[in-house]
C-alpha cells in the first residue's frame, strides 16, 4: 500500500510538469488557434534560464587556497562568496528558485516576441503550416541552446533547505517520506494553475480573453484590441512553461533535447484532456503522470513488461477512439 501511495506521489510532480506545459499549450490553442510544437522548446529554455542563473551566480575568480601553505595553490571562488561570504554561498545554493526572477521575464519576453514576429503571420495559414513552422522553431531553439551549452545534461543543485525528505505520511499514521523539492514543485505547480484560473475567471483581462476564445470577431467588433491581449496570453503561456522548466532542473538535469520528450507527452495530455479545455489539460496532466508512475511499480511492470513506456499512448488512443472530444473538451472545438 505504501509503495502505491509513494508511486502515486512520484507521479504527482511529473504530472505537475505535464499539466503546466499542457496548460500553456491549451492557452495558446484556445486563444490563438495555433498548435505550438515549440512549446517543449520553451520548457527547455526555461530550464536553461536556471542553468544560466547558476552560471552567472558562480562566476569565479582565482584566489589563493588558504588551506594549502606549502606552495601557491589557487581555487575558484565565486565573486559572490568573495563579496558577501556565507550569504553569497546561500544565494548560490538557492540559484534554482532565484532563476525564476530571470526565467519569468525572459520567457515572457520571448513569448511575446515570438507571437509578434512569427506566430501572428500564421493565424490564417493551415494547421499543418503552423505545426511545421513551430517544429522548425523548436529545432532552431534546441540547436541554439546546444551551441552555447553543449549536448550533455547539466545537473543543477537543489537548495539545502529542500534537501531531504518530508514525512508527509505522518499525520495519517503512514510511514511515507517524500523529497521536499518535489513536494515544492507540486505546490508551485498548483499555485501557478490556480493563478491562471483566477486570472481568467476573476479579472477583467481574463473576461476579455475568455470572450475572445468564444468569439474573437465579436470581441473585436466591440472595440476591444483582442490581439494585444492574446499576445500577452502567449507570453504568459511561455512564462508558465519557463517556470515549469526552471524548477524541474534539480529533478532532471536539462539538455537541449528535453523539450521534445515533454512536448510529445504534453500533446497527448492536451488531446486526452480535450483540446481547448484548461481544466481538462490539468486533470489529464496529473492523471497521466500518476498513471505512468503507478504502472512502473514492479508488481505491474513484471506482469506486463514495458507497460510504463506505452501506457500514456495507450490511454490516448483509447480516449481518442471512444471520446473524440477528450475528457473535458467543449463541443465543437476541433472535433474532427
Amino acid at each position, binding site marked *: 500500500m505504501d509503495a502505491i501511495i509513494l508511486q502515486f506521489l512520484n507521479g504527482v510532480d511529473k504530472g505537475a510538469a505535464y499539466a503546466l506545459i499542457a496548460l500553456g499549450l491549451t492557452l495558446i490553442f484556445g486563444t490563438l488557434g495555433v*498548435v505550438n510544437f515549440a512549446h517543449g522548446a520553451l520548457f527547455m529554455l526555461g530550464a536553461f534560464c536556471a542553468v544560466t542563473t547558476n552560471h552567472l551566480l558562480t562566476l569565479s575568480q582565482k584566489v589563493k587556497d588558504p588551506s594549502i601553505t606549502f606552495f601557491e595553490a589557487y581555487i575558484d571562488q565565486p565573486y559572490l562568496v568573495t563579496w558577501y561570504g556565507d550569504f553569497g554561498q546561500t544565494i548560490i545554493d538557492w540559484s534554482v528558485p532565484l532563476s525564476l526572477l530571470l526565467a519569468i521575464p525572459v520567457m515572457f519576453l520571448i513569448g511575446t516576441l515570438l507571437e509578434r514576429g*512569427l506566430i501572428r*503571420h500564421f493565424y490564417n*495559414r*493551415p*494547421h*499543418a*503550416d503552423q*505545426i*511545421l*513552422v513551430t*517544429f*522548425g*522553431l523548436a*529545432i*532552431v531553439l534546441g*540547436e*541554439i541552446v*546546444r*551551441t552555447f551549452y553543449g549536448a550533455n545534461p547539466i545537473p543543477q543543485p537543489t537548495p539545502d533547505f529542500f534537501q531531504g525528505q518530508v514525512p508527509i505520511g505522518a499525520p495519517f499514521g503512514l510511514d511515507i517520506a517524500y523529497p521536499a523539492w518535489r513536494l515544492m514543485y507540486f505546490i508551485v505547480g498548483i499555485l501557478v494553475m490556480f493563478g491562471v484560473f483566477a486570472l481568467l475567471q476573476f479579472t477583467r483581462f481574463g473576461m476579455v480573453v475568455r470572450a475572445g476564445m468564444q468569439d474573437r470577431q465579436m470581441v473585436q467588433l466591440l472595440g476591444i484590441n483582442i490581439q494585444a491581449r492574446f499576445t500577452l496570453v502567449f507570453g504568459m503561456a511561455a512564462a508558465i512553461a519557463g517556470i515549469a522548466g526552471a524548477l524541474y532542473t534539480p529533478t532532471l538535469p536539462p539538455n537541449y533535447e528535453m523539450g*521534445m520528450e515533454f512536448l*510529445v507527452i504534453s*500533446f*497527448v495530455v492536451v*488531446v486526452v484532456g480535450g483540446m481547448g479545455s484548461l481544466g481538462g489539460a490539468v486533470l489529464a496532466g496529473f492523471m497521466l503522470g500518476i498513471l505512468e508512475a503507478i504502472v512502473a511499480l514492479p508488481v505491474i511492470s513484471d506482469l506486463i*513488461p*514495458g507497460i510504463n*513506456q*506505452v501506457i*500514456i*499512448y495507450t490511454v*490516448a*488512443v483509447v480516449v*481518442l*477512439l471512444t471520446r*473524440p472530444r477528450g475528457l473535458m473538451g467543449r463541443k465543437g472545438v*476541433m472535433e*474532427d
Partner: protein
Amino acid sequence: MRKRDYFMLLIFAAIMITLPMWGPLIDAGYPDIMQRFAVFGLIAVGFNLLFGLTGYLSFGHAAFLGVGSYTAVWCFKLFTMDVIPAIIASTIMGGLVALILGFVALRRSGIYFSILTLAFAQMMYSLAYSVLTPLTNGETGLQLALGDARVIDRAMGVNPESGLPSTSILGFGVSNQGMTGYWICAIVAIVGFYIALRITRSSFGIMLRGIKSNQTRMSYTGLAARPYLITVFVISGMYAGLAGGLLASVDPLAGAERMYWTASGEIVLMTILGGVGTLFGPIMGAGIIKWLEAKLSTFNESVVEQALAFLPDSIEHGAAVVVSKFVGEGWHLSLGIIFMLIVIFLPGGVMEGLQRLAGLFGFGKNKQAGANSTPAE
C-alpha cells in the same frame, strides 16, 4: 498517364543512372551518399503520396523506416543474405505496421492525426529501446553475427569462410562492394517513382486530392474517405519500410535511433523543402538535405577559416567563429533555419521557387497544373 509523365519518369531515370558520372562534380561521387539520395528520395516520395495528396501530416514515418530496417536485418540473420527477400519482407512489414497504426490514427484528422502518429512513433522508439530488446538488441542496434541461422544460405551451401557475410543479390556482393548497392537503390527508387506517378495520376489519386480539398463534400457525394486514406497510408508506410530495408541492405545493421522523432521530422523537412504535392520536389528535397548533411556536418573551424581567408584578418577570425556554429556539429541549426524560411516565405518549397524564377524569366506559360499545389491542411 500523360505524355509529359513518361517524360518526367525518363528524366528521373536519367538522373539516377547518370548520377555516378556527374556526382563527383558536386563532390558526391561516392556510393554512400548516392545511396542516401536514392533511399531518402524514395521515402520522401512515399511520404508525399500521403501528405501531398491527402494533406494528412504524419509525424511518425520514421517508425516504418525503423521497422523495415529491423525486418531486413532479421531476414539476413534467419534466412539468407540475399537482398531481394529482405526488401520484400521489409516492405510488407512496413505496410502491416502502417495498417495497424493507420486504422487507429486515421480516425482523426488534422492536428490530431499528426499528434497520434508522433505519439505512436515515440512509443515504438521507446519500445525498441527497452522491452523489445530481444528483437531489436536495444541500444547496441541489431547486427549480423557469425552464429546466425541463415537457414537458406546454409542449406544452399553458401557460407563465407571467415568473417561476417555480406549482403548479396543473386550472388553478387552488395554491402562489401561499392556500386552494386547504389544500383539496387537507384533501380528501386526509379520503380518507386514510377508507381508514385501512376498513383498520382490514377482515379485513386484524384480521390485522394478530393479528400484534401474537401472531405465533407466527398462524403456527401457518397464516398467513404476512410478506405482511401487507409490504403494510401499503407502504401506510404510500404515505401518507408522498403527504404528501411534498402538502408539495411547496403549496411546490414538497424538501430532504434532511426525511429526517433528527429528522423520523422527529417522526412517531413525533405518533402516540404522540395515542394509538397509535386512529384520531383520531395526527391530534390531529400537530395538537398542529404547533400548538405554530408557536406556541412564535416566542416570544422579550420575548413571555415580557409574558406574565409579572403577576408581581412581582423574580421576573419570572428566571422569564422560565427560561421562554424552553423556547420559541423551545428548543421542542424542551419537546417532548422532554412526550413523555417521555406515554410514562412516559400510554402511550396524549392519547386515553387523554381516556378517563380521561371515565371520571372518568361517561361511561366507552360506551368504545369498538377505539380503546383496549395499548402496542405
